[in-house]
């Protein structure tokens, strides 16, 4: 039995750890299999320092063609022949072998980009007899994009250890981490103010205090009714996320409604002014991403919706910019 088991087992265990694991903030990351794990959080230009531990199993020695660690920033676009909403199979990235085969199968357009790739050689080819640790350090790493887990696109950062081998597949171990970048409050932040209407039916003027909101911000505004000729049942404010991937004719757009927030119950009359106060913190927003590496964008919109008594919906959509405020 032992022999049989041994034959399929990898010859060693590989683990990656960070030097500041205990002090660094951990954030949840949703894996492809649906599980959520806690991973360390970094921001751009931080030093990523740690060590790799390789522990041969059963005390056996084994040969290798060298050991390296890579820091990869990847954008994975999951658009397959117009097929959207594709569910990723479990551990699609579990090993590079598997990954490359899957990529050939599903990612026929090669929608898999490394926008950052740094390598550190840890060991020259040779033999390993016993457990060994390798220190590694990536200093002041440029990580301009934030980790993102969308519907058709995913941006992720990983540390990948590869033990090269002859004739048989390499041993690969990955460690995810999350990058979030903070921005200071924008110097210009105009309000959104507009008068809109359907001729002779409904004229309103709305005002949102700002056009740029941080993730824990609160939208303050008001809706002023200039003319009401339809029987309004209620009014809602929606927060919608628009994720677009690809470019040109191959652009794929997914829109999600993240929040439906009732602003008004009943029919107003001319001259009424309805307050808006929507706290953003309960919703899982990300900052606005514009044209990340020419691959994708994530934008946010406020959608003001009126529903009349026949359940017809009238709406007006306005883009807002979401940013991650540098917390002081």
């Amino acid at each position, binding site marked *: 039995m032992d022999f049989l088991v041994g034959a399929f087992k990898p010859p060693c265990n590989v683990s990656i750890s960070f030097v500041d694991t205990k002090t660094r903030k951990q954030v949840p990351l949703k894996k492809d299999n649906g599980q959520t794990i806690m991973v360390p959080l970094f921001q751009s230009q931080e030093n990523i320092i740690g060590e790799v531990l390789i522990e041969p199993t059963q005390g056996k020695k084994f040969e290798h063609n060298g050991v390296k660690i890579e820091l990869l920033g990847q954008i994975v676009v999951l658009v397959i022949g117009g097929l959207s909403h594709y569910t990723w199979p479990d551990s699609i990235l579990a090993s590079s072998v598997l990954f490359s085969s899957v990529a050939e199968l599903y990612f026929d357009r090669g929608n898999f980009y490394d926008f950052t790739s740094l390598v550190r050689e840890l060991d020259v080819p040779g033999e390993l007899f016993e457990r060994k640790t390798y220190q590694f350090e990536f200093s002041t790493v440029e990580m301009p994009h934030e980790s993102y887990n969308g519907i058709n696109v995913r941006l992720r950062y990983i540390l990948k250890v590869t033990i090269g081998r002859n004739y048989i597949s390499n041993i690969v171990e990955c460690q995810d981490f999350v990058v979030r970048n903070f921005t200071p409050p924008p110097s210009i932040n105009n309000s959104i103010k507009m008068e809109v209407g359907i001729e002779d039916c409904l004229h309103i003027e709305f005002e949102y205090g700002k056009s740029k909101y941080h993730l824990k911000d609160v939208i303050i505004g008001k809706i002023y009714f200039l003319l009401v000729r339809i029987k309004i049942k209620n009014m809602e404010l929606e927060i919608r996320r628009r994720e677009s991937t690809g470019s040109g004719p191959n652009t794929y757009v997914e829109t999600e409604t993240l929040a439906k927030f*009732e602003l008004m*119950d009943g029919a107003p009359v001319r001259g009424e002014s309805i307050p808006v106060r929507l706290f953003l913190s309960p919703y899982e927003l990300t900052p606005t991403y514009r044209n990340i590496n020419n691959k994708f964008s994530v934008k946010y919109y406020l959608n003001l919706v009126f529903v009349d008594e026949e359940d017809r919906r009238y709406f007006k959509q306005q883009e807002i910019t979401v940013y991650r405020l540098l917390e002081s």
Partner: protein
Amino acid sequence: MISDGVEDEEKWLTAGIAGLQQNAFYMHRALDSNNLRDALKYSAQMLSELRTSRLSPHKYYELYMRSFDELRKLEMFFKEEARRGCSIIDLYELVQHAGNILPRLYLLCTVGSVYIKSKEAPAKDVLKDLVEMCRGIQHPVRGLFLRSYLSQVSRDKLPDIGSEYEGDADTVIDAVEFVLQNFTEMNKLWVRMQHQGPAREKEKREKERSELRDLVGKNLHVLSQIEGVDLDMYKDTVLPRVLEQVVNCKDELAQHYLMDCIIQVFPDEYHLQTLDVLLSACPQLQPSVDIKTVLSQLMERLSNYAASSAEVLPEFLQVEAFSKLSNAIGKVIEAHVDMPTIGVVTLYSSLLTFTLHVHPDRLDYADLVLGACVKKLSGKGKIEDSKATKQIVALLSAPLEKYNDIVTALKLSNYPRVMEYLDTETNKVMATVIIQSIMKNKTCIETEDKVEALFELVKGLIKDLEGNHQDEIDEDDFKEEQNSFARLIQMLYNEDPEEMFKIICTVRKHILTGGPKRLPFTIPSLIFSCLKLVRQLQGQDENPFGNETSTTPKKIFQLLNQTIEALSSVPAPELSLRLYLQCAEAANDCDLEPVAYEFFTQAYILYEEEISDSKAQVTAIHLIIGTLQRMHVFGVENRDTLTHKATGYSAKLLKKSDQCRAVYACSHLFWVDDQENMKDGERVLLCLKRALRIANAAQQMANAARGNTGSVTLFVEILNKYLYFFEKGNPQITVSTIQGLIELITTEMQSDTTTPDPAADAFFASTLRYIQFQKQKGGAISEKYEPIKV
């Protein structure tokens, strides 16, 4: 669409309550385990039941009250949370994450209440935020209930003067602003209700609206309870703002209700000091608003206020309350061209009550009010609306009640002009009211012109007014009113004979126009009024200078004669006869023989020519005999003539028994006890004998006609007459005649043909007992009686 079925509504309510209870159950569990997140979740779900549009306000209220109770528990929990260190500010944010607005705002108000209590933020900021956020509910019913909840939870947390929430940043003005804003918004929602939904359900909606009115009015009550709302603040802020909303909402129901509310909830003193502001709003209200009730309420309150204490009266003068109210009423009536008469009259009636209370000394004000009323009524003809008529009666009764003195009311020149507008019937009612007032207060009307004025008021009773249909009048009512008018004549009195005579002439002039139906009531009253004057004069000497204009009994008797003569048109001979006899007696006392003789002559003529009914004749002859017996003014000749006539009439009566009685009554004409020259014993005996003869004849006639002789009563009666004159010392009446008569009666009573008559027996027995008694009495009388044997 929603069906109108009450059953359905009941079902929905039941379902709503079930949903509410279920979520309340989970909420309680969360509260018990201090699970804030779940508590918020289930409370929001519970409150979602209030989002229904299917229930009428009445049923919705039930649901609301249940939610209200549950929210109290949640509020306790929030307080606990805050005490445990949970940031109330965070809590205030947290509840705002709820996606549905109605539950969100209920929760916000609940936390807001705790927030204010925690004093972590100025009360005014929290209140302002809450009242602003509530704008999100534009549905009338849901909005009204939500805001009423807000009002409820904030009531004890307003930064009022002396409140713990008052501070540098929070002043009473913030409290007032908050309540005013909530009031304004609630009223807008309430008014808007009528425009929502199909037109055919308008009536139902109006009913529902009026069920909700107290939710709106409550705010005014809250305002009135704020300590810090003093007169200045009321004048400068509260009232103008409230009125602005009332006027601008342009809704009949709301305007009426809210005006009424304002008047009821705020102190009278404030109303008095802000009268112009309040009144200036009135003409701006919708034409359909029942402004008269509103103003009447106001005036009634002010009247009561004035009546409450004399100390407040100067305030009224200072603000010129009367002229302001008077102007306002004028403007309101002008603005409402088609205001019904009742409205106009009600307004003036209230104003009159007001001025009577506030300015009892200013009779001119009262007259002014009446004058204004007349002006408004002019051109409308008689008032037909019975309610309006009632109001006029109230209007006219007010001064009577206030002054308890018709004389004061008589000074009101416009008083009779108002009465012109009453229909005949009501005019009479009013006249009766006036008379009753006079009677009750025993008011004496002392001058001729006052009498004229008064008669102008009660002329409905004096004569037939135009358009009066006699046949419709109830006989009893007519008697009643004429009797009361007759009583009124007695109240017209002046000690000075000259003036009194003038009064009498005036009264006479008026009552003679009354027609045959009234004269029998009015003339006797006047006659006795005259006779009273005669009695007053009779003691005095004639004016030695023989002044032509002075009042003498002679003059009065002439008037009396003419007055009684007027009755002949009725005709009422029996009444006239009585009156002539009364006058004759008065003339007797004045020693005016010719006058007395003339009256007797008139009486006799009436007897001979007009009185033909036997019964009436009997009565009349006894009256004549009785009166004549007391006359001492006549000389022998006159007296003889009159007595002779009287005995002649007596003997000619139809029934024997009547003849008999009249004849023995005549015996007294010849024997006047206190006059020595009037004692003719012979003729007395003649009369009595004649009476006996007639009694005998009566018995024989009865025997012949019916087979029995009838009763002996007549004999016993005659016996009594014998005894009377016997006692008085008439020498013609002797013991033997009496003895004979007694025996005769005894024999008669034992006769077979006599009808047994217990009454006659008893009468006779007691007559005998009397004789017995006199015999035993002792003294001269006993001696006189001694020989009579019984």
